[in-house]
């Protein structure tokens, strides 16, 4: 096992990794920007090194600074957390060149999975179901009609050069396709100087469902089941759960096997997440893979009892999966996570500042991951998430009720947080029913406005 690990991150995930290292007897080195001098990840690490000014680009994202810190602290390995340098293949390569173990997959795999179309092709080859669509640019109206026929309506036409909805059209049948194709192409040409279009199956009300995996350096892969992450606002997840009510044990096992095979093929190691969209009929399509620990890993930990960060460390140290996870993976109960952000709960404006009172809920089935504290500062430079509140219960009902109880006992003063927003979501009928999709927050906020 490693003797000393540098944590190239901040906030709750830095503290999460420090805690895992401490429990394993590994010395920890925190790095921090000048804005984070009084942060708990600095306080609770064995050593701490200031690596730059507040802006991430000059500190946490500054590869030479991080590597220099690792060298002067003489560490064996670097844990990148999530975000920041965690999916930066160049950083992983510099680590390798510097003889420091990067706790993540090999840079080649990170790079492959970071390229959306490569990832798609890789998964397609491994027989993971992917979102059907044209294999590249559509040359003509006629080709568009053919693709649409094989993909199945509704389909969505997207500008290759596009973004922001321009050059984008949803087509529900063959009759309207030629007209929409021409409109979209003209619009794309006008907007981006390139009228090329491609096509994907359009899912009206998709769910976001993802599978957690562990893979070692010896070719062993294990699926730890799925998470339901459809509660999002502007593609930012707000609430995550495990397991998903939509995944039957049979589907879980089947998909687990497919994923296992696909990752064995590409030589993946580390913890990782395979993200899917699920359509209204329960069919599931691969969209992308994340090659790092995720914010929402805790809900999987709560239901499986497996410590994912420790697993990452042990995998990176060369251990085999069967020595890390010694009994069959079993889902116990239901877990839900709320991301508590320093934001206005209605306007979503960021709310940096000094926390004047901070009382975290505790008791049965409640877990809080945070690096904040009373008198702590939320700097304006970074992500607004200040805490994760995770509740576990024997079923979804109990987990939801526990979350409502815990939210009511979570006191943060001095700044705004999204706690009141979560309280409203947990009182919402649609949310409680479990029958929702990624458009939930739009509908919910509309309902709130009307009320």
């Amino acid at each position, binding site marked *: 096992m490693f003797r000393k690990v540098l944590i190239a991150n901040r906030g709750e995930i830095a503290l999460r990794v420090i805690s895992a290292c401490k429990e394993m007897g590994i010395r920890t080195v925190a790095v921090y920007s000048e804005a984070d001098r009084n942060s708990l990840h600095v306080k609770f690490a064995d050593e701490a090194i*200031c*690596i730059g000014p507040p802006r991430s680009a000059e*500190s946490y994202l500054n590869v030479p600074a991080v590597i*220099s810190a690792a*060298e*002067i602290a003489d560490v064996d390995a670097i844990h990148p957390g999530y975000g920041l340098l965690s999916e930066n293949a160049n950083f992983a390569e510099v680590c390798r060149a510097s003889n420091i173990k990067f706790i993540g997959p090999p840079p080649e795999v990170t790079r492959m999975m970071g390229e959306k179309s490569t990832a798609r092709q890789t998964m397609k080859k491994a027989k993971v179901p992917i979102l059907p669509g044209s294999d590249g640019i559509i040359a003509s109206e006629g080709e568009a009609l053919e693709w649409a026929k094989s993909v199945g309506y509704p389909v969505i036409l997207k500008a290759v050069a596009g973004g922001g909805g321009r050059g984008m059209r949803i087509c529900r049948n063959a009759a309207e396709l030629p007209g929409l194709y021409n409109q979209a192409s003209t619009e794309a040409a006008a907007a981006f100087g390139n009228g090329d279009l491609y096509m994907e199956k359009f899912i009206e009300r998709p769910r976001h469902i993802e599978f957690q995996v562990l893979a070692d350096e010896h070719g062993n892969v294990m699926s730890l089941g799925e998470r339901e992450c459809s509660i999002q606002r502007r593609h930012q997840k707000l609430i995550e759960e495990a397991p998903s009510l939509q995944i039957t044990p049979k589907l879980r096992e089947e998909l687990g096997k497919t994923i296992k095979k696909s990752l064995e093929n590409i030589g993946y190691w580390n913890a990782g997440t395979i993200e899917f969209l699920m359509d209204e009929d329960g069919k599931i399509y691969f969209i992308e893979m994340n090659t790092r620990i995720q914010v929402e890993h805790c809900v999987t930990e709560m239901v499986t009892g497996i410590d994912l960060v420790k697993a990452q460390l042990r995998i990176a140290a060369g251990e085999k999966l069967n020595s890390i996870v010694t009994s069959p993976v079993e889902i116990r109960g239901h877990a839900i996570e709320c991301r508590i952000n320093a934001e206005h709960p209605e306007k979503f404006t960021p709310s940096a500042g000094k926390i004047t009172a901070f009382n975290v809920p505790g008791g049965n089935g409640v877990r809080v991951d945070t690096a904040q504290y009373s008198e702590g500062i939320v700097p304006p430079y970074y992500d607004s998430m200040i805490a994760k509140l995770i509740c576990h219960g024997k079923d979804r009902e109990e987990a939801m009720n526990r979350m409502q109880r815990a939210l009511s006992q979570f006191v943060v003063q001095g700044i705004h947080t999204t706690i009141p927003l979560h309280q409203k979501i947990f009182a919402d009928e649609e949310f409680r029913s479990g029958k929702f999709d990624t458009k939930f927050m739009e509908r919910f906020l509309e309902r709130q406005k009307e009320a």
Partner: protein
Amino acid sequence: MDGSKMQELRELVEFLKANEIAEFDMEQADLKVRIKFAGDPAAAASSFDLAQLSRLMASAPAAGAAPVAAAAAHTAAAPAQAEEKLHEVKSPIVGTFYESPAPGASAFVQIGDQVEVGQVLCIVEAMKLMNEIESDVAGEVVKRIGVSGQPVEYGQPLFAIRPR
């Protein structure tokens, strides 16, 4: 820090002790004070405006036997303590400090040397690269704070220079 400031500080400490305040942060223009009392019980923080407080302190009696064991105060402001105003050259990067261009070679600068803006003072090695650190002020080298071969953080003082 001149004598009257020192007197203000003494009064401030008395005031805080008398009021059993455990931690204290203060900032006024270029002066910052951070006070944390040792002993038991500890902690609890509050913030004040020095402009007001120093005036308020004038009349503060040294009352109240607070359960405080010891008091420590230092100014965290860039230009040193009760000493004269020195300029600190800080490390712009994380790395290892070297006072000379190569092992065995003589140091870039000696104590007492007059340096110009842009003159190389030392090297900070980061990722096998030798980064020459230049003086950002002209003056006399008063102190070499960095130690050859030892690591330095971002923002850590390397030299103290008396500007001219």
